[in-house]
C-alpha cells in the first residue's frame, strides 16, 4: 500500500465543515442499537468541545428506510425531509448534521435532485406548505456527525486520556474502519476522502493513535442492505455478506472495527454471534469476536468515559479484550448494572462466541 497515493486521493476529496452551530438530528434506530452513541455525540461536542449543537424532539424519521424498502415514493420522502429542514430553519440553524448515514445519503440525494430539478423543489415546498404550513431554507452545509467528529478529531486527541495503542507493546492498535454505503458511494465528493478510500474514520483512528487496516473487502457492504435483512428469506444473503468481510479481514487480526452507520455496527456485531453459531468460527483472539464500535463510542473510550456509561455492555461481542489492551480501567462487576445501579441480570451466553 502506498500511503502517499491515498493521501493524494484524500486531498481531492475534502469538504468544508463549519466549526460550530450545528442542527443535529438523531437516527431512528441507533438509539435502540447502541443507545449511548448519540448521547455521547452531544456530550462530547457540547461539553468536551464546547460547540453549539442543537436538537429538537419534534423531528421525525427522514423516511430513508421506507424509501429504500420501496414502501413510500420519493415525493413523500422529500416532503418529510423538507419538514426536517423547516424545523432547522425555524430553530435558526443552517448547518444540518444527521446522525444516520442513510439519512445523510437521503438528504444528499434530495438536495442534489432539487439542484438538478428545481421544479421538483418548488413542488415539495408547495406540498409542505399544504401539509403543515411550514417553509424552509435548504441547509448551507450538510455534514454527517462522523464528519464533525473527524473535523474535531485532533481536538479530541488533545483531550484524550487514552490512545489506541497496545499498552504492553506500545504498538498502535489495528483498527478496521467500515463506512456506511450511503455515506460516500452515491456522492463521493460529499464524503471526506471519497468513496474508494474514505478518510472520515481513518482520520480519527490515525489521530487517536491507531493503525487503519485496509483489507480486500473493505468496500463491501456490512450485509444489512435493508431488504436483505428485513425479509427473513433473504437473511442468508445478509449474513453471507458479513461473513465475506470477516473472512477477508481475518488475516490482519484487527483489534476493533469502527463504523459510522446505524446498521453496520449492529450487523457486524450481532452476525459474529450467528456466524459463530453456524460455522463454529470466531474472528477475535481466544474465541472472542472483534469488538465493533461506533465512532462516538471510540471517541468516548479515548476521552476516558466509563465503558458501561458508553453502553458497551449492549454489544454482542465482548469489548473487554480491547479495553484491556488499551489499558482502560473499568469495573467488570458494574457491567450489568443499570443507571440506578440496579442489576439488569446477565444475558444468556452464546455457545460458541466467547463473551466474558
Amino acid at each position, binding site marked *: 500500500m*502506498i500511503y502517499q*497515493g*491515498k493521501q*493524494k486521493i484524500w486531498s481531492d476529496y475534502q469538504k468544508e465543515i463549519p466549526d460550530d452551530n450545528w442542527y443535529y438530528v438523531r437516527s431512528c434506530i441507533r438509539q435502540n442499537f447502541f443507545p449511548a452513541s448519540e448521547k455521547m455525540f452531544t456530550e462530547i461536542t457540547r461539553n468536551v468541545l464546547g460547540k453549539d449543537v442543537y436538537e429538537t424532539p419534534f423531528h421525525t424519521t427522514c423516511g430513508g428506510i421506507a424509501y429504500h424498502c420501496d414502501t413510500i415514493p420519493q415525493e413523500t420522502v422529500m416532503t418529510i425531509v423538507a419538514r426536517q429542514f423547516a424545523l432547522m430553519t425555524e430553530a435558526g440553524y443552517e448547518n444540518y448534521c444527521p446522525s444516520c448515514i442513510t439519512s445523510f445519503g437521503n438528504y444528499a440525494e434530495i438536495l442534489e435532485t432539487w439542484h438538478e430539478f428545481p421544479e421538483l423543489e418548488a413542488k415539495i415546498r408547495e406540498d409542505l406548505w399544504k401539509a403543515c404550513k411550514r417553509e424552509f431554507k435548504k441547509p448551507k452545509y450538510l455534514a454527517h456527525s462522523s464528519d464533525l467528529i473527524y473535523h474535531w478529531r485532533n481536538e479530541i486527541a488533545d483531550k484524550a486520556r487514552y490512545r489506541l495503542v497496545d499498552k504492553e507493546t506500545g504498538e498502535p492498535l489495528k483498527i478496521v474502519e467500515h463506512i456506511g454505503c450511503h455515506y460516500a458511494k452515491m456522492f463521493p465528493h460529499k464524503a471526506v476522502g471519497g468513496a*474508494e478510500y474514505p478518510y472520515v474514520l481513518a482520520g480519527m483512528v490515525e489521530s487517536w493513535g491507531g493503525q487503519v487496516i485496509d*483489507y*480486500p*473487502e473493505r*468496500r463491501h457492504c456490512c450485509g444489512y442492505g435493508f431488504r436483505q435483512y428485513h425479509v427473513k428469506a433473504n437473511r442468508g444473503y445478509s449474513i453471507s455478506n458479513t461473513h465475506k468481510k470477516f473472512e477477508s479481514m481475518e488475516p490482519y487480526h484487527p483489534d476493533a472495527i469502527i463504523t459510522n452507520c446505524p446498521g453496520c455496527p449492529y450487523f457486524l456485531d450481532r452476525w459474529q454471534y450467528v456466524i459463530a453459531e453456524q460455522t463454529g468460527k470466531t474472528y477475535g483472539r481466544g474465541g472472542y469476536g472483534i469488538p465493533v464500535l461506533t465512532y462516538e463510542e471510540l471517541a468516548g473510550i479515548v476521552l476516558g468515559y466509563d465503558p458501561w456509561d458508553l453502553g458497551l455492555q449492549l454489544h454482542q461481542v465482548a469489548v473487554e479484550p480491547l479495553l484491556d489492551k488499551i489499558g482502560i480501567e473499568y469495573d467488570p462487576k458494574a457491567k450489568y448494572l443499570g443507571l440506578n445501579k440496579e442489576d439488569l441480570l446477565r444475558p444468556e451466553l452464546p455457545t460458541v462466541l466467547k463473551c466474558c
Partner: protein
Amino acid sequence: MKENIVIIGGGIAGMEAAKQLLCLGYNPIIVEQNDHLGGHVSQWHQLFPDMTPAQDLVRRLGEEISEANIFLETTVSYVNKLKDGYNVMLNNGVNIVCRALLIASGFKLFDATKKEEYGYGVYDRVITNSDLEAWFNGKQDPRIPDKPARVGFVHCVGSRDLKAGNSQCSKVCCVTAIKQAIEVKEKFPDAEIYCFYMDLRLFGKKYEDFYINAQRDFGVHFIRGRVSEVGEAIDGRLQVKAEDTLAGKPLKVTLDMLVLMSGMVCNPQATEIARMIHLDMDDDGFLRSRDNVYSIIESNRPGVFYAGACTGTKTVPETVAEARAAALGIDAYLKSL
C-alpha cells in the same frame, strides 16, 4: 528562402510531417515540449503487430529530419492569427510567422489514478501499460514482482467510460494488452495471464492473429467483464473482482500484478492552442476535424492542419499516414494561396 511551417509536437506525426515537408521544399520547425523527439512511441518497447522495435522507428525518423529546425523543451506561449498566417510565440522567446501551422500534439495517456477503484498509485503492484513498456525497455520497476504467478490486464481504463470522462474507445488498448500479455508470458512462462475486456476490438491487419496466438500458444485467459474493484491483500497481492459476463456470475481472482490499459485523451496543449486560435473541439475532447471521412487533417481555420492523435485515438500507421497527408495538404494549401 524556404517557407517556415510550424509543427507543434515532435512525436512521430510531427516527425513524419517534417520529413515530408522537407522533401516538398519547406522549412519545418518542430516545437516539442519534451527533451527528445518521438513522443509516446519513443517510450514504447515494441509495436504491434510485427513487434517492430519502437526505437528503430524513432531513430529512423530522427535521422531523416536532421535538416529540420527542432526546438526541444519548448512550448507554444501564444499563437495569434495574422492576416494571411499565424504568429507563433515560443516560451524561449522565439517568434515565428508562418502561413501554415500543423498541430501534431498527440495524446496524453489517461491518468489511471482517476480510476481510484483500481488503486493505481495506491496499491504496490498496479502499473499501467506505459509503465510496463518502460520496464520492457529496461527501466527498473519495484511494482513488478520477480516471479509473478498471475498477471492481469484491465482493458478500457479511462476509455468507453463516461464516469472517467471519456466515452470513446481508445482503439489500440485491446491489441496492446494482447501484445503485452504475450510479452509478459514470454518473460514469465509459468505465469497465468488474465485479460479483462468488455469487447475485444481487434480491427487491424494481423490483430486477430495476435489474439488467436495469445489464446492458443500463450494460453492467455480472456475474461469478458470490466474489473469492478481491486483490493490489496495482506501479502500485497491484488484481489480483483469482475463480473464474468459470459458466465453471468461474479468472478474474483488474486493476482500478483495488474496492468491497467490506460486509454488516450487529448493532449491539454492542443486544447490550449485551440482556445488561442478558436479551433473547434469535438465532444470527445479531441480537436474537431473538418469532417471525419475526407478531411481529418483539416481544421476549421485556414492554414491550420492536424496530424495524428490530436484529433482522436490513432494507431502508429494511421498517424504516419495522416502526417504524410497533412504535409501534402499544407503544400496544396500554400500553392492555392
